[in-house]
């Protein structure tokens, strides 16, 4: 279809919710313009396109705004038939992918707590992440009973859930460096780790990863800030 297909993504490079959408666009080979927002100084356009939540990500397609990362990704999957189908045909498989993708919000919130706290509060947050990731691992086992496929196969069958997991855990090395502990590892969460390792090899994904030093610097800053405000 030769229609005007203007796609703009409003985001911030540090947000895993934005990353989810970015990965979806890249994996499906969709051309888009990216606009980096300063959340302390939101642009008038962002406020116009997302007046209700005033948050990123916002996808604007031919002038119409779509918000909420998972809603955006389903919209992308329904609108562009290029690249992998991010939700498979089978309704049951779709339901499992949606369930776990939605669950990742809870996992993510627990992970953020680990970064923002120390001492007993952090111990509690770490325990929570550990429990939740264990459940995620079990969920992945249900979706991949024969283990994670080869990179070549995976790149044709990437799903919405894979992108969400990558968006939140893709920076795990940076997290390890800043926190001095592992939230995921190949012993306790082998499927989560193999999922990320395989996905990172997909060219479209590889080029969207942020450099390690940049993420480390940001996480350090984020953590210091959080600890400062906690004691202030």
């Amino acid at each position: 279809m030769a229609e005007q297909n203007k796609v703009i993504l409003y985001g911030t490079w540090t947000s895993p919710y934005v990353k989810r959408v970015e990965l979806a666009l890249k994996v499906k080979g969709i051309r888009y313009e990216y606009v980096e927002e300063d959340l302390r100084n939101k642009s008038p356009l962002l406020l116009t396109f997302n007046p209700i939540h005033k948050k990123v990500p916002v996808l604007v397609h031919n002038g119409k705004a779509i918000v909420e990362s998972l809603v955006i990704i389903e919209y992308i999957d329904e609108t562009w038939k290029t690249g992998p189908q991010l939700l498979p045909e089978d309704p049951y498989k779709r339901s499992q992918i949606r369930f776990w993708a939605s669950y990742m919000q809870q996992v993510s919130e627990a992970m953020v707590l680990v970064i923002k706290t120390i001492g007993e509060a952090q111990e509690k947050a770490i325990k929570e992440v550990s429990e939740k990731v264990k459940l995620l691992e079990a969920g992945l086992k249900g979706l991949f009973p024969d283990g994670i496929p080869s990179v070549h196969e995976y790149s044709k069958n990437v799903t919405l859930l894979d992108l969400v997991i990558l968006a939140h855990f893709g920076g795990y090395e940076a997290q390890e460096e800043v926190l001095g502990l592992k939230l995921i590892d190949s012993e306790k969460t082998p499927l989560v780790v193999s999922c990320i390792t395989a996905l990172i090899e997909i060219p479209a994904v590889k080029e969207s990863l942020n450099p390690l030093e940049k993420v480390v610097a940001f996480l350090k800053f984020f953590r210091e800030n959080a600890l400062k405000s906690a004691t202030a």
Partner: protein
Amino acid sequence: MAQVTLLGAWPSPFVYRVIWALKLKGVDYEYVEEDILYNKSERLLKYNPVHKMVPVLVHAGKPIAESAVILEYIEETWPQNPLLPKDPHGRALARFWTKFGEDKNPALFGFLRTEGEQQVKATKEGQEQLRILEEQGLGDKKFFGGDEIGMADLEFGWLAWWLEVWSEITGVTLIEAESFPRLHAWIQRFKEFPTIKETLPDRSAMLTHYKDRRATFLALAKS
């Protein structure tokens, strides 16, 4: 047709959402009541190990949890009387409002669980969300879904029945006809819709149930 079973707990609005979807589409199902407060069954823990909550839909032996996920599954498996429009943007809007409900419904429930100053605050917060719903979610449409009941209508269906009961118990009215004319009109349309009208929990039984629940919430808050 493969067996459809719904694990639920009366009078959960999350469960009723699923019941409405099944009834609107004419899907036969077996309903199983779970004692969600005091005695969760082995079956529930097996079918929803992550959240241990209802509703859970079991179709051909396979469980699906989370009402929003269940509704999408029902829509895809039984496409008659669709709950989502065909165009991707319309679908995205329906899903946006459904998520809005998931995120904001706790704020809307707040006034049932609080008293005094906290309740005043909760009521105000709830009404802020309702203002957004009234003006941007519903607007001038007949239903959230347009001319027909859609997914977002089911998400907010509880406003059409549960809210009245809670108002009677607390003396707090969240939706006054003068301040929320569109929502008020929608409420009348929704609860009068034939399939919905025959599928609403008994009002006096709800009064007893929620009076009890409110007492429990308030006691917990004090402890």
